[in-house]
């Protein structure tokens, strides 16, 4: 391919930006680390990334259901590892969400007071890692990017966080690593099994997603390993307790990225890896995943209601909202799955905005206790207006983006999993309860002059931060067509492929299962051992000769 590697440019531009931030003499150590130059440079980098990603949308052909903007280069040939990236309708919008949120995060970095350069560099590295995860079509590459997301977020929470930042950062990392180590084992097992049958070592997702040599038993174990990693990331109840701590301690920008993009990586992993690779196990796990998702919807909402810290409330609301997304995806029809993707975007926008709003308050008062506020609507009307709009988006009022997502998820899921969906509908009521209670307690009532009398309304810079989010709330709520049009063919095709593969695997007993069964039968006979090693040797020889 002689084409311009657009996708790679988008993925690595922020990383290059981060390196330049350190190398470029203008930002050198002698400079004031809080200089405007650092922020301006990061702003330029993220904006260019965003503009480039818009080119992706422009060049994306929704009718082409395969991967687009594909780049496939051999990377580590002896391990069958390739640099293989591509984009479909699902990853397209998550990439756009990431590139869209980053300039906003940079803009919101004004509240970061120390080591701005390190903070923004971490953000840029994080952006590259997230984008890489979203476009990787090689399991090894995916895993590298997946793990690479951890380090910068660890620093963002651990260095620029609140009082209990070390605890929160460690908890975040340990939780995630625990899951991803299992996933790594799973990846190796899968690659080994593939090698057993085909005699080729490959981490290529497309090859592995056509692999038919796993027994149902193996699928179940592998799916469980992958799903655990992803469920922790989402987070699905009961793997969620790292989230409130991480959010409360993280700086505003960290929370925005965490809620806006990183949580989606868990569900994206389920979509991109777990379901296509292990379709039969996915089917078996559906009631459990749907059950946990629905518990998450109700549980997250209930616990959010009990919170006394604004940020923690919003964090638990994420558990609830992501529950909807998981439900929509595992219900597995076009409407619900599209709703799930759409809701992931919505959640990035509305919850991202809510975290920014909390940040605005925190910058001024240095507290997030709900009881410290009250009656603010009279003092800061523009803030109150913004807060109201994003609250309404969060509780899915029609003509805001949240409604489209929630409606599609519920309407779609209702056809597949009516029982679960009816319970999830309770979340529609509970969402209104906790968000409106928060709104009432902070915005309405008499203002405490001593505490909040001097509060100033949102500044021009803050307004610029919110404006694009505000616009999207209404655009995506009133005219979702461009988004849904680009999503629909991909999702239809995705579901068809997974279901066909599931049928195919069910109807034909996989070859390697037979082989394993034979192996077991022959286990007592010592002679077969040499046979087995012989086949393995043969396979090795074949592979060597191919290389």
């Amino acid at each position, binding site marked *: 391919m002689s084409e311009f590697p657009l996708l790679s440019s988008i993925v690595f531009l922020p990383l290059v930006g981060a390196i330049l931030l350190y190398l470029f003499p203008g930002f050198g150590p002698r400079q004031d680390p809080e200089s405007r130059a650092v922020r301006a440079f990061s702003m330029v980098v993220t904006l260019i990334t965003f503009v480039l990603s818009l080119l992706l949308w422009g060049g994306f052909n929704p009718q082409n259901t395969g991967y687009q903007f594909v780049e496939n280069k051999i990377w580590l040939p002896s391990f069958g590892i390739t640099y293989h990236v591509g984009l479909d309708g699902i990853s397209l919008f998550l990439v756009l969400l990431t590139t869209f949120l980053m300039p906003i995060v940079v803009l919101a970095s004004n509240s970061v007071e120390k080591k701005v350069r390190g903070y923004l560099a971490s953000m840029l590295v994080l952006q590259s890692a997230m984008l890489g995860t979203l476009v990787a079509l090689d399991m090894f590459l995916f895993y590298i990017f997946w793990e690479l997301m951890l380090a910068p977020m660890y620093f963002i929470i651990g260095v620029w966080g609140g009082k209990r930042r070390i605890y929160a950062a460690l*908890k975040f990392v*340990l*939780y995630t690593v625990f899951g991803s180590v299992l996933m790594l084992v799973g990846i190796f097992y899968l690659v080994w099994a593939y090698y057993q049958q085909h005699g080729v070592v490959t981490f290529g997702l497309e090859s592995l997603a056509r692999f038919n040599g796993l027994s149902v038993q193996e699928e179940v174990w592998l799916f469980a390993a992958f799903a655990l990693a992803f469920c922790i990331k989402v987070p699905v109840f*009961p793997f*969620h*307790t*790292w989230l409130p701590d991480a959010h409360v301690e993280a700086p505003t920008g960290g929370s925005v990225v965490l809620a806006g993009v990183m949580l989606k990586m868990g569900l994206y992993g389920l979509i991109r890896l777990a379901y296509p690779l292990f379709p039969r196990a996915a089917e078996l796990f559906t009631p459990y995943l749907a059950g946990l998702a629905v518990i998450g919807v109700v*549980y997250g909402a*209930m*616990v959010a*209601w*009990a*919170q006394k810290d604004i940020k923690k409330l919003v964090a638990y609301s994420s558990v609830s909202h992501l529950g909807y997304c998981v439900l929509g995806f595992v219900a597995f*029809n*076009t*409407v619900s799955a*599209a709703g799930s993707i759409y809701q992931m975007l919505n959640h990035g926008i509305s919850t991202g905005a809510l975290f920014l709003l909390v940040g605005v308050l925190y910058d001024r008062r240095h507290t997030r206790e709900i009881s410290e506020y009250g*009656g603010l*609507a*009279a003092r800061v009307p523009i803030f109150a207006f913004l807060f109201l709009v994003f609250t*309404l988006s969060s509780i899915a*009022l*029609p*003509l805001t983006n949240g*409604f*489209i997502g929630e*409606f*599609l998820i*519920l*309407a*779609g899921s*209702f*056809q597949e999993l009516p029982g679960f*969906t*009816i319970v999830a*509908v*309770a979340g*529609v*009521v509970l969402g*209104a*309860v906790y968000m*409106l*209670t928060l709104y*009432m307690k902070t*915005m*309405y*009532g*008499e*203002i405490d002059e001593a505490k909040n009398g001097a509060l100033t309304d949102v500044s021009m810079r803050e307004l610029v931060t919110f404006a694009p989010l505000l616009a999207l709330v209404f655009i995506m709520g*009133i*005219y*979702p*067509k461009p988004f*849904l*049009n680009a*999503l*629909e063919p991909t999702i*239809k095709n995705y579901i068809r492929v997974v279901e066909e593969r599931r049928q195919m695997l069910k109807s034909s007993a996989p070859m390697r299962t037979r082989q394993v069964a034979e192996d077991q039968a022959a286990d007592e006979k010592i002679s077969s051992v040499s046979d087995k090693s012989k086949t393995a040797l043969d396979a090795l020889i074949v592979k060597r000769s191919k290389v």
Partner: protein
Amino acid sequence: MNQAAISATIWPIAFFPLLGALLAYVLGRKERDWAGIIATAASALSFLWVVKLVWALPEAHYFEDQLFQWISLADLKVDFTFRVDQLSAVMCMVVTGVGTLIHLYSTAYMHEDEGRHRFFAYLNLFMFSMLLLVLGGNLMVLFIGWEGVGLCSYLLIGFWFKNLAYAAAGRKAFVVNRIGDAGFLLGIFLLLHLVGTTDFVALQPAIMSGNVALGTDFYTLVALCLFVGACGKSAQIPLFVWLPDAMAGPTPVSALIHAATMVTAGVYMLARMGFLFVLAPAALAVVLVVAVATAFVAATTALTQYDIKKVLAYSTVSQLGFMFMAAAAGAFWVAIFHVVTHAFFKACLFLGAGSVIHGCHHEQDMRHMGGLYKKMPITCITYGVSVLAIAGIFFFSGYQSKHAILGALEHWHNPHLKEWIEYILILVKFTAFLTAFYMTRSFVMTFLGEYRGHAHPHESPWPMTVPLIVLAVLGAFGGLALSGSLGFSLEHYLAALNFGAAAEHHHESIAAALINSWTGLLGVGLAFVMYTQLKELPGMFLRLVPPLSKLLSGKYYFDELYGAIIVRPLEGLAAFLWKVVDQGMIDGMVNGTAAFVDATGELRRITQTGQLRYYALMLFGATVFFIIFYYVL
């Protein structure tokens, strides 16, 4: 809507108030008085556009305006479509007509409020949402309006948000409505799942043809889900508790949203989906029971209220029950008839109450009023006319619609509740009597006798009295005008709402009509006598049966009951889930694991000295150990 479509430009009806809301807020920030003018003008323009369309609407046709495709995904297609058929036409006339009058009234009522730009923006936004609700060509667009009016109601109830109790009332309204909306949503999901559309034009033949392999149970289920939604919006038992609290909002809001328009949305929705409800007799029986119970409970509660707005609030709940009774009997046009006449006289009553409150310097307790007929004659007369109308006395408008409701119940042909209908009718007539009684009570306490307050009551300015007069005239003659006596018959106009049921035609003499008004006459007469002449009697009655009087003045303790069995247990559960389950159990396990690893790590640390010699020794020792292990043992 089984008629022919004509394409027309409908969107300006909804667009004017939307634009008005934006302009009223933005320009009103600079110059507060502009807000009211802009909002009133927007509402009036919308009314004119409605008149223009309704004038041109031919019989057995409807206007259609396809704007754009809102949602399109796989089989799910939702168009953003407006339609004006006869039903929507009637609703639009009421919403924009009464709405404009109330906007005009508000310009004076809110004259001194610092936040009136916000007020008028919300009010216009409400008009926009309400018009989406009645113009929507499918359940989804209707639902946009449905939730939109809920939002505006929330914002306007809590308009004076510095008072936290008012803000809480707004939240309560929104949350209780959301419970209804959840049921509504489930109904939509069921329809989408089994019929595949929510478009009224497509839905009606699909349902009525009966060829959908769905069965009565399906119809009953969908109808009940939708009715749950209607219970929320139209304040029926068990979801009516928000409406009395909603009186925290400015009085014009109570008149427009919580009496004339929004709360009738549930009735409208039932009429709109009537073709489904008539196929679900069991659901209609449920509707009847709920409606009669609500009408009775609310009417008895209204007997003991002293806050003039609370009396009207419970009266509204009760009258909504009457509307649902008609719908339950399958007489949807009658339900809409009562929606219309109720909009006239109840808006007039609320605006009259507002005028009194305005005149008495924010006094709402009727015990501190009295004798206002001298100071506020126009308010007094218009209020009195409306009392006669709601009491159902011939020829006032309430008589025609209430009489039609009773007629519909007498022809109850639903197999369910057939043997009970006579007793139900007695209860309904008793409720009608109570209506006349408590409304007359409020009139006497407010306007007759001697003034008991300390303010200096004065008549309101013309922007407030003109709407009162217009509404009183409509409340007086509107019923006659719509019942065919003057050449226009609402029944005929809404013929499309007769789903299979044959229309009853009955003409009655004036004498018969007067006799039929006996419940109303009795209620008015008795209350008049009791509250002007035998003033000790009401108190004696209540003292005779203390538990009853306690029950009534305690409003049947619905709020206390819900607090005890729903709200507080849920709050407790929330705290439990957070403190015990989340922090205690789940996080306890997580941190416990960490602590365990940490502790055992301490043990292992003993071996990790970091000294090379030590490691070398260990390595050597281990090697020796393994060599011995393999080769020696």
